[in-house]
């Protein structure tokens, strides 16, 4: 999956990929103070494509708001919500909206789920449907944080660590391997990293093609940009 940190104040964006063995669960957001947790499990292609490059994507997210007593499991098949001591199941095949005391859900048929957790966070999960008989690829999910300003300074995780901004500066732009993707040096978190100018796609407005967002790509699973390394974010369960 590709991670994107868009910084409108700087009119810039940072991006990195994280890949691991299919089945691995990563911590995306964890805020011990508000009791919020978002974990995601990756899945691989059905078999290795001819280019020999095995893709991984998120196919399942577990979302918990301990203080509000809310749990959600979103996967490529359905959406399960636990609140007020009961589980409710929603299907991607229906448009639905659910307004609760602590959580609002809005499902747009076969497309997206918008989740608003009271006084804490708002996000969207996108469903990418792939032709069922595609020889290699499968359905997968995207996770977009829309509003995170109410989370505490302690928020962390592969996405959460960036919710309160990141200071970096880029210099020494130089030709890269591909002419349209120059390399540069990024100074971030006390380190110098070699980064490459590239694009990643934002699918919120155009589910099919996505919109290219130019970004500074950090190589090696985001090493240097993320705190620690990617394996530090591997967790054992979805909740």
């Amino acid at each position, binding site marked *: 999956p590709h*991670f994107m940190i868009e*910084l*409108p104040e700087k009119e*810039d964006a940072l991006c990195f990929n994280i890949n691991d063995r299919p089945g691995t669960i990563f911590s995306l957001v964890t805020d011990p103070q508000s009791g919020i947790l978002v974990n995601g499990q990756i899945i691989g292609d059905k078999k290795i494509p001819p280019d020999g490059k095995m893709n991984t994507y998120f196919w399942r997210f577990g979302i918990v708001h301990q203080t509000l007593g809310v749990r959600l499991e979103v996967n490529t098949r359905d959406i399960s919500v636990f609140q007020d001591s009961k589980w409710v199941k929603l299907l991607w095949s229906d448009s639905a909206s659910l307004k609760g005391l602590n959580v609002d859900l809005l499902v747009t048929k076969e497309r997206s789920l918008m989740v608003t957790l009271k006084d804490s966070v708002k996000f969207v999960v996108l469903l990418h449907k792939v032709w069922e008989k595609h020889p290699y690829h499968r359905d997968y999910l*995207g996770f977009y944080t829309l509003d995170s300003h109410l989370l505490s300074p302690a928020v962390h995780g592969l996405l959460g660590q960036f919710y309160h901004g990141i200071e970096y*500066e880029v*210099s020494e732009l130089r030709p890269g391997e591909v002419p349209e993707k120059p390399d540069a*040096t990024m100074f971030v978190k*006390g380190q110098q990293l070699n980064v490459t100018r590239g694009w990643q796609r934002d699918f919120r407005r155009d589910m099919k093609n996505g919109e290219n967002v130019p970004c500074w790509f950090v190589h090696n699973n985001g090493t240097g940009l993320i705190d620690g390394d990617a394996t530090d974010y591997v967790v054992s369960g979805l909740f």
Partner: protein
Amino acid sequence: TNEATVEVHSVTVDCTVTSRFARTVMTSVALNKANTSQEIFFEVELPKTAFITNFSMEIEGRVYVGDVKEKEKAKKQYEKAVSSGRTAGLVKASGRKMEKFSVSVNIAAKSNVTFILTHEELLQRKLGHYEILTRVKPKTRVQKFQIVVNIYEPQGILFVDAHATFLSNDLLPLVEKTVTDKKAHVSFSPTMEQQRKCPDCDGTLIDGDFIIKYDVNRAKSFGDIQIVNGYFVHFFAPPDLRRVPKNVVFVIDISGSMYGTKMTQTREAMLQIVKDLHEDDHFALIKFGSAIYTWRDSLSKATQENITEAINYVKDIDSEGMTNINDAVLRGVAMLIKDRKEKKLPERSVDIIILLTDGMPNVGESNTAKIQENVLSATGGKMSLFSLGFGNDVDYSFLDVLSKQNKGIARRIYEASDATLQLQGFYDEVASPLLLEVDLRYPDNAVEMLTTNHFSQLFNGSEIVVAGRLTDNDLDNFMVDVMGQGLEEDYKAQGQASPVKWTDIYPDEEYIFGDFTERLWAYLTIQQLLEKSKSGPADEKENATAKALDMALKYSFVTPLTSMVVTKPETEDGTDSPLIADKLTEEQRQQAERRGYHYMSASPPMYTPTYHSSPTYFVDGD
């Protein structure tokens, strides 16, 4: 305007300058020729240093006048109107020097409308002249188009130069200029035909800046004092003073965001600045990213040899790291203190730090308030810090306070092809100090409500202005003392000021001078109070804000503390819609530019990203 149905009868700009205080009245008369009512727009630009003082619209015999109110009160009225979707602010930033005032009203069929906007400002002497800037964009040819500027300077006028960005060879002779000893008259009034852009088209040539530059005869010794109607103003900028040597430390940001054009322009500007250093000056170069690098450990005299070596150092400056402003400035301060202590610097000389940065501190101390505290504590208020904020990523108010707390000023450097010249221009303004610690004193029992009368420096090409109110209206004269530190000895001058007999100087035009001096005093007082309201102890800030507000209301100036509320005529559905004219602060201008600004100059334009208003963090499939 819609050319087919709106006829612009006249556009006139009438500017009167009396002892540097300029009052400009912009008037426009238009006719709705259509058989139905329609919206007519009035859009003018005024210098950002000016305060709007009056605005009126005359529609169908009724005059609607703007009312200056406390900003908060006006805002309440405004918010009420906004919530019902009926209003918008009238003033927006426009370029580096101007702001745009625009209003539109619905005019009945076959009806006239007259718009009149008045603004006032005290012209500042920079690099040896005053500048009156008028921006005209009438959009269509106008039956009566006229710019008239009358300058009254009792000190005597040295020169007047008038030019415009749109002047062709044909239009040039239309600029009439008459200069007598103490009065200048400049006018420009092309006919409809002369305004025509080309023989077969209807466009207008008139589009751009009309600029008048002038200077006055400099009075020797204590300067020039003018007393009118119980107020006095003192202009001090004596000629023939020798410059005081300076010890200047250039603290240059080389962080990653300076990469590319900004770094190239900084290098070019620094090469010229270093070459232009006076041989009596001492200088040092400090560059900073995350780390701090000094060219040498102490300041060097600007000998030819040292300058050559410095030029080689400047040529190699390249970007790296993040932004450590705190440690870089403190290093400069420490260098000056150490060299002073070791008597490496001339006793009579001025210590200056020039900080150039394009970003917010993000390494070392990044709390801006703490940096301000650290720098003030280190300098002990004994040296001047001038800050240059390059581009829109730096918080101008941070640099502004940082400089003002340390006897300096901040200036924005706009990212553009002329940034090199902007940098050099700023340096030229502060490159030649003539006097230090200038004190202007007046008899305590004769004056009150004085504006600032102590100045850390007087720079070549600038001018010190002090104004105040006389306690005795019938005063025949009063004594003035001026003291300062010059190159070799202390500067002392004393003089006696008498009320100006305007009838003798301008026998036919005394009426012009009625309240100019009082308004000049009020303008200067408000400006200085607004400055005080930004830095200094909390109670002083509060006090200064309250006083500035009182005066702005009393003299009807649209300042950052006040707003002008303009009530438009009722529409057919019976609603009226208040409009608000605000004075923008430099921070608001910067924010506006930041919103409209597209990506960093360091990378090719093909990478301009989609602009989103709030941050987004996401993960998705490739």
